[in-house]
């Protein structure tokens, strides 16, 4: 917050939807009951929301389904009119509520690029000029004559994304669109966003995926039931998000062994690290075997459990993470009273530093059954000093191509 200009200002914004009990009224009803008020339910989607986003910031707006985040996004994009308050935007704001708005399956890439460009506020000529940059970015040069319907879904996403990056917006508003596409594509997207940020553009990401917020955003805001629940640095917002999820779950038996521990249905007991000799260790040598152990007890029936750990460094950067689901394992449901022992063995290729282990259990893909941040920590020692997060095993060859050595050794 070094006094940069405000890119987006939201001040006291409220938005209420009046939802009629019976959505579509016919004229006949109107005619027969002219004075009958339509019964409506007021849905307060946003209540006095205020915040500011600075220019060049990568800002995350998180919230669960129904928290009002999409409504907020649509108000910012000018699709909905706010009831109260004011939203100001500096420069051109381009929303991406959906990839490829206005795409027409029967038309070619060129036609679609022009249509989409005009939708985003370009003139047809400008949009046409941008065509080559767009298909270049999307890597679709060989498929220009095809109709869109003959593109694979991946190609369509690439085209849509290329349009978005090339739209020349000052403020980009992105709604979950990145959920589509594989990890490599997502990474490419975020590389592109970082690039935009370097150029002083502002990126606003709206998502329910807290991981994404933590990975990419510099600052985040949490919306809950239409009010700002938290705003600040992503890790603390992520924590608040987890807490909210628990409060919602009702009878949360939070066994606060330490502040920050969460337990709902599953208790994570002891978590420790074992060294080369199979004994508990505080420090592990570089290149040695490293074993992470944990004891888990199920306090309830847990369907589709997923158990995982992450290792991160002092700054919070995740160095390594693994879960049963990521390994493709499908675990049997936990029964109440089940005791489990976790053992993850790996070779310690970490750089010398202090590391922390988080351990967690999910039920399904979203509900957190237990989470213990910084459940244990360990120190890595060694003298393979190099830069970077990990000390990957490698060979290093540097050969001289010229024959200077030969010349020097020959008398």
């Amino acid at each position, binding site marked *: 917050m070094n006094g940069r*200009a*405000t890119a987006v*200002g939201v001040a006291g914004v409220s938005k209420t*939807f009046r939802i009629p009990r019976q959505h*579509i*009224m*016919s*004229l*006949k009803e*109107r005619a027969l009951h002219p004075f009958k008020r339509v019964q409506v339910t007021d849905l307060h989607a946003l209540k006095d929301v205020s915040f500011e986003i600075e*220019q*060049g910031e990568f800002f995350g707006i998180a919230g669960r389904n129904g928290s009002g985040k999409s409504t907020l996004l*649509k*108000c*910012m*994009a*000018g*699709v*909905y*009119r*706010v009831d109260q308050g*004011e*939203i*100001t*935007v*500096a*420069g*051109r*704001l381009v*929303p991406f*509520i*959906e990839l490829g*708005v*206005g795409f*027409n399956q*029967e*038309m070619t890439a060129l*036609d679609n690029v*022009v*249509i989409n460009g*005009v*939708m*985003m*506020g*370009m*003139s*047809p000529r400008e949009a046409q000029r941008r065509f080559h940059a767009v298909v270049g970015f999307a890597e679709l040069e060989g498929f220009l004559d095809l109709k869109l319907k003959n593109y694979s879904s991946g190609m369509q996403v690439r085209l849509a994304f290329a349009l978005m990056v090339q739209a020349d917006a*000052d403020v980009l508003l992105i709604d979950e669109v990145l959920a589509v596409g594989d990890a490599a594509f997502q990474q490419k997207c975020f590389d592109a966003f970082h690039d935009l940020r370097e*150029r*002083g553009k502002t990126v606003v990401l709206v998502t329910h995926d807290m991981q994404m917020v933590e990975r990419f955003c510099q600052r985040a805001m949490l919306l809950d039931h239409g009010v700002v629940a938290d705003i600040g640095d992503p890790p603390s917002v992520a924590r608040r998000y987890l807490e909210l999820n628990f409060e919602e779950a009702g009878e949360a038996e939070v066994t606060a062994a330490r502040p920050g521990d969460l337990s709902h249905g599953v208790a994570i007991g002891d978590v420790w690290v074992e060294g080369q000799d199979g004994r508990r260790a505080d420090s592990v040598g570089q290149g040695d075997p490293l074993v992470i152990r944990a004891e888990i007890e199920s306090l309830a029936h847990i369907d589709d459990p997923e158990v995982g750990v992450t290792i991160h460094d002092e700054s919070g950067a995740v160095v390594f993470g693994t879960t049963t689901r990521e390994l493709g394992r499908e675990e049997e449901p936990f029964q109440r009273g089940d005791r489990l022992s976790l053992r993850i063995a790996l070779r310690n290729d970490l750089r010398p530093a202090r590391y922390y282990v988080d351990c967690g259990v999910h039920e399904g893909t979203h509900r957190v059954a237990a989470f213990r941040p910084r459940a244990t920590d360990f120190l890595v020692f060694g003298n393979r000093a190099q830069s970077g997060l990990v000390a990957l095993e490698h060979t290093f060859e540097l050969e001289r191509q010229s024959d200077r050595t030969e010349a020097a050794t020959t008398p």
Partner: protein
Amino acid sequence: MSSVAAPRRVRGPSAFGGGLRRTLYLTWIIGLTEYRLTYFGSALGYLWALMRPLMLFGVLYVVFSKIVKFGDDIVNYPMLLLFNIVLFNFFADASTRAVTSLVDREAIVRKMHFPGMVIPFARVLSGGMNLAVSLVAVFIFLLAYGINPRWTWLLLPLLLVPLVLLTLAVAMLLSALFVRFRDVAPIWAVISSALFYGSPVLYAIDKVPEDYRQVLMLVNPLADILEQGRRWVIDPNAEGAIAAAGGGAWILVPVALGLGVLALAVWVFNHEAPRIAERL
């Protein structure tokens, strides 16, 4: 770092918001797309823009000229029929397709900041492109039929401007109302066929009994447009809109009526526009 633009207030959706240029670009690109897709995939493609009115003309011509011998005493009746059908078809087609336009285009309306009226306007524009193609064919037929070109043919735009304005007005009005009342679609289907018979499309205005003739000319602006077209394009001895409406200042009544519909349409659309995205 790029220079910072001054913050501007986000105004939310409206009928005309987003600037005139953007409105025009959007109307053009969406209208063009719809036009290109109208006959897409059919073997004859754009030829259908010509074939459809011609085939309808063929049917009506056989019925009214050969079977019921209706048009015998109307000068150049077949050509009048063709001309009228092309003009009326534009109005009926464009307005009918505009009714559901906002709902059809939900994907755009709910996802972009959008000057709402672009959507019904684009439908009218794509209808207008069809009309332009058809009119070229009509004039070729007129020449082939042996009607001599007259300078009054150049006045055609004076007919098309009020016709297009009226169509736009109806398109805006109906599309905005349809979002709220889905009854609008069947009601308009009935009204537009009533208008077909209530306008001098199949007949000339002098076929209408004296008592009703003036009333018809006063309450139905389409009647005035078609009758004036008959005088300028088909038969210079025809009465023309002004005389048929009762002469002199009477013509201001249908003009005022048309402008009234336009004003009402703009008001309704403007009133509804901010909430259209929420109601879809």
